[in-house]
Every structure is written in structure tokens, then in C-alpha cells.
């Protein structure tokens, strides 16, 4: 992986002049009625609300657009009409911690309505579209794990795209829900961009392709910015945590993790743990016999993806400690390093 290292180094070398949690951040709602041909359009028609500024203040903000239109075929077929309407309503909450974007939650509710007086025989062939576009740039002081999740419900499409400071991209789309898609990448220090999109389209009926009068749905996107390699959860079975501690973060640079033996492990002739086995994602990585307190066991050569570390300890049996279970375990999960 020397390639990756060289790239990251190159990127770290160009920190932003003045870091801001979010900037160039806008939300735009668009309603469009597309393709009337020779038909006449009446009513409010296409409508754009925004771009309105997006702020990372931890508060819920809302913006949206709705509109309607009628398309009428040219004379003498003026009884061939298509009534259309669409709406797109977005609420978002962007949160920052210590001047860095920490989370973003965006919900887009969309609906479209279309009734053609001549049904599949309509000649205006006009469709209704609703769209929400949220764009923002955010500055990271150090590499961060960015997790983007898009959930689509109903006849809509949700899309999210992340672009880092050197133009590297991860773009995900979930459509016709219930469907969910997620992307997890480590973005380098510097300015990255986020583009979120919610989209609904309702086509007019055509021969062989009937369409409903109404379509609706929502696209829900969350973005989490986290430190790579930190622990996410811990479970201790049979009080294993009185013997050993798994570090609150793995060492991403060294691909390792420290397990520190507690006072409970004892010392000298009074050691309590006969044997300990450490597994990472189910594969054995280390075995320790009779550890003593303050001893540090380093688990090395860890994979860069998400890991679950399990320490399985066999305490010594004691005559007066019949209640001691045979095996105690400590399980801790960690975020990916890359």
C-alpha cells in the first residue's frame, strides 16, 4: 500500500486556509413539468425555491417547493388536457463539534400527481418532476471516517455523492424503496464536498404503460463524521472487564490494538487468568498465558476495515469460587481505519 500512503501525504500537505465546518452550502427545491411539445401550458408552472443557505447550527431547518400546471393540446383537440402537480419538501439538521461538521440529517418528502383527460391517448406527453438538491463543502482538520446512508421509501430516488479534496468520489443511489444504501470512506484532511439529491418523477400514461395518478415517497440521508478506528460498542460477559481492558481506539497507523491487563488479573503466584485468546473478526490473532496486571498485549496486523475483537479468558478454578464461570469474554467493535 505505498500508493495510498503517498496520496494521503500529498493531501495532508495542503490544509485549507481557514477551516470552516460547512461552506458553499445551499439547498434548492425544484418543480419541473417537462415536455409539452406543441401543447399550451397554463397555471403556475415550473418553480425553483432557493438556493437557500445551509447552516450547521444543530437546529432543524425546512425549505420546499410545490407547483402545478395544465398542458392543453392545440385546437381542435383542446379537450386533451393533462393536469400536473408536484412537491418537494426538505428538512435538515447539520451539527458541528469543535468547528468540524459532525453529522447531517436530511429528509426529503416528495409527491407528484398527474391526470391526463385522454389517458394513454394523451398527446401532450408531459411529466411531473420534483427535486431537492443539497450541496455543501466541509473542512476536516485530520482524516475522518465519513459514513453516508441513503434510505428511499416509495417511488423516489435518493442519491448522495462525496468528493474529497483531490477529486476522488464515492456516489450512491437507492431508488424505489424500501431500499437503503451506505458508503463508508476515510476522507483526507482538507475540503471535501457533499452532494445530496432527492428526486421524484411521474410519467404520463402511454399505450402499454399505465401510470398511477399519484406517486409519493421520501429520501432520508444521514452523514456521520467520525474518528477512524474508535471503539463503537463493548460487551463483557462474566465480568471479563475486571481482568482486561481493550483500548478505546485502535492504532490505525500501526494496524494494532492494545489490551491492558487490570488489577483483576493479579500478579506473581496470585494470577487469576490461566489463558486468554484474542480473535479479530473470528480469526485468532493472539494467545496469552497467565497474564499479570499492567501487562499490555498488543494485537498486531489488524485489517483496515471494521473489526470486532473478542477476548476469551479462562480464569483459574478456585475451590472456594465455584460460582466462577468457566469462560468469560470481552467483545469490542471498532470503526474502520480506511
Amino acid at each position, binding site marked *: 500500500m505505498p500508493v495510498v500512503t503517498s496520496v494521503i501525504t500529498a493531501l495532508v500537505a495542503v490544509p485549507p486556509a481557514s477551516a470552516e465546518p460547512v461552506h458553499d452550502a445551499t439547498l434548492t427545491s425544484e418543480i419541473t413539468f417537462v415536455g409539452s411539445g406543441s401543447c399550451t401550458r397554463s397555471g403556475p408552472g415550473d418553480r425553483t425555491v432557493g438556493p437557500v443557505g445551509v447552516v450547521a447550527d444543530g437546529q432543524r431547518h425546512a425549505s420546499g417547493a410545490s407547483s402545478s400546471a395544465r398542458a392543453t393540446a392545440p385546437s381542435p383537440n383542446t379537450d386533451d388536457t393533462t393536469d400536473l402537480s408536484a412537491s418537494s419538501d426538505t428538512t435538515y439538521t447539520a451539527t458541528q463539534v469543535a468547528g468540524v461538521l459532525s453529522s447531517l440529517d436530511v429528509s426529503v418528502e416528495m409527491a407528484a400527481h398527474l391526470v391526463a383527460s385522454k389517458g394513454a391517448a394523451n398527446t401532450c406527453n408531459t411529466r411531473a418532476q420534483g427535486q431537492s438538491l443539497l450541496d455543501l463543502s466541509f473542512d476536516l482538520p485530520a482524516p475522518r471516517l465519513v459514513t453516508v446512508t441513503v434510505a428511499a421509501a416509495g417511488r423516489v430516488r435518493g442519491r448522495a455523492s462525496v468528493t474529497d479534496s483531490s477529486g476522488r468520489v464515492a456516489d*450512491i443511489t*437507492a431508488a424505489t424503496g*424500501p*431500499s*437503503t*444504501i451506505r458508503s463508508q*470512506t476515510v476522507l483526507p484532511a482538507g475540503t471535501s464536498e457533499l452532494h445530496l439529491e432527492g428526486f421524484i418523477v411521474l410519467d404520463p400514461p402511454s399505450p402499454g404503460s399505465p401510470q398511477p395518478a399519484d406517486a409519493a415517497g421520501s429520501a432520508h440521508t444521514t452523514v456521520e463524521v467520525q474518528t477512524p478506528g474508535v471503539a463503537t460498542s463493548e460487551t463483557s460477559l462474566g465480568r471479563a472487564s475486571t481482568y482486561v481492558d481493550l483500548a478505546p481506539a485502535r492504532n490505525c497507523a500501526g494496524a494494532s490494538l492494545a489490551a491492558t491487563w487490570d488489577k483483576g488479573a493479579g500478579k506473581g503466584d496470585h494470577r487469576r487468568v490461566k489463558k486468554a485468546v484474542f480473535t479479530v473478526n473470528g480469526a485468532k490473532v493472539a494467545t496469552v498465558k497467565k497474564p499479570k496486571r499492567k501487562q499490555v498485549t498488543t494485537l498486531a496486523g489488524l485489517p483496515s476495515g471494521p473489526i470486532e475483537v473478542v477476548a476469551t479468558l479462562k480464569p483459574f478454578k478456585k475451590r472456594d469460587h465455584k460460582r466462577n464461570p468457566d469462560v468469560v469474554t470481552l467483545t469490542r467493535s471498532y470503526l474502520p481505519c480506511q
Partner: protein
Amino acid sequence: MPRRTVAAAVVAALAVVTLSTATPAEAANAATLTSGVAFSYIKDANGCSSNVADFSDSPATPLGFDGTPVTTSWSGNATLTKKSGDTGDQVFLGAAAHGTVVGRSTAGSPSSIDVDGTVTTTVTSTRANSACSAFTLGSMRAQGTVELSAPMLVTIDVESDSGVGVEAAAGPLQVTTRNLAGRQSGTALVPAGTMPFLARISQQHSQPPAPMPSTWTGGAQVHITLTTPGSQTVPAKGKAASYVALPAARSCASHAVTPSVVAKKKKAKKIALVTYYVNGITVRKVKKPKKGAVVALPVADDEGAEVRAVVRLVQKKKGPQHRKELEVTASYAACSG
């Protein structure tokens, strides 16, 4: 950087056109595997000429869904020479793409597609900055359709390093990455009918190659699975299997898993307590269950469910050291995306 971005878009468009015309009409449960290389450079009077064609593709290999790995490989080299002026200005481009795909079936229907692709490209030149403005692209692609006779839970998982770009799609789920290492995963409930899928792994390398090395390798994996919603993905296993029966499927209609206690009265009477866990969380405790007792454990539709029943037997002797607990575990696919 802007020059490369524009160039990338152009070559991507060209490659797609070439590849799609090479693909025959796709029938149900049909898929093909191809790989190819491309060379791009300025061709006007002040530009360069090449000793080989700009594009070449491997023959298309059909992919079965029978568990047999199918491979595709293609490579090419080009020497570009400036047409006029500094005719000593030469660029040497090389690209090699390799892919392995395994399609599997369960009960006659496709159940998974696993794609593993790597691309290596080399860029060298006689001048630090050639007038050819050249780049090469290597790619492998698996594309096809599967016929779904009933709604299926479809998942897509992509894992790539920074050396490649990936385009992957399964039904309503799409992933596009360009040189950003990471992982993407999605789940959707896809209605019955024809579902298209695609996995394309490619690498583009320009002259001058920096900051990338002259020879650059990248790779990615794409996994697509198709599972009956709510079906058992890991069969029931454990010593308590004879005490508690975990059902063959969860009920998507009632949003629940319904395990039942053994129907034999004699055996059921041995049970002091059953604790039911869903995804590691205690959901229900039943003391002294009657024979055949059924419980409905609620599960959210969009989650897979690992169901564990821990059976504590009636103790013959007092004291915690004589306590006997057995367990049985099974896993179920989600009901929706």
C-alpha cells in the same frame, strides 16, 4: 487536475459505447464477462500517433450461475510517438485487466454474484511532460440480468482500494466510486421481474504518472446477493435445538419471528426458563413454558435477525454451579431494504 477529469469523462463514455455494442441481447439469467484496454492521446498534427488501435476488448465470456469461477483477462501496450517537431517524444502505455466472477444458485434461481477485479497500468515516457497528453484505461466488466419469479431481497457490497473506480448496480441500488478507497453496501426489496446488474472495475493512468507510481495496481470486489425475504440464512444450531424450534422463516407479514417450545409434554416440563434474544438483545423471557408454547418476537422489517433462545433446565440440585443452560441460534434475512 481539470484536464484529467475531462479526459476521464470522455474515455468513460467511449468505453461504455464500445462495450455495450459488443454485448449481445441479454436473456433471462444471462450474464457476460469482458475486459478491455483503451489508449487516449492528442491526434492532431502537433499530436501523436500510435502503433495499435485505441480500443481493444476481450471476447465476452458467458457467466453461469453454477458456482464455477469464470475469468476474463485482457492486456495491451501502445507506443505513442509525436508526429512532428520533437519526434523523440514518446509515451509507452500498458494496461492489463483481470476479473474472476462466481455466480451461484439456490433451488435453480441465482442467489449470488461475486466479482473480483484487478487492473494494472504502466505509463513511461521519454519526456517528463509529453505533448501526447496521453492516458490509458484498463477495465473488467460483468453485466447481465436475473429473472426474479417473486420479490427478492437484494444486497450489493462494494469494497475498493484507491487504485480503481467502480460502477456497480443491482436493481434500484447503484454505486459509483472513483479512486476513493472504502466500502459501500445496500439492500432493497426488488419486485418480481427482470433485474439488471452491473459490476465494472477500471483504472485510468495519465502521463505524467505522478503522484501515482509508473506502474500502478488497483482492485475491487463487488458482491451481489439475492435472498427470499425473511428466509433463514443460517440454520438453527445449538444444544437447545431439541427444546426450542426456531422456524424455517420469519413472518414478514406480522413483522415477527415465532419460535416454539417442543411439543412433547415430558420434555417441555424440563424447561425452567427460556430467554429469547434478537440481535443480542433480550426480547422475551418465558418461565415454565407449556408444551408447544409459541412466542412472537417483533423484528423490524429492514433488519436481518439473529434469534437466540437460551433454555435453562430445571435444576436437579440447588446452587448456581448446578445450573444448566443450553442455547440454539438461527439467522434470518431482512424483509425489506
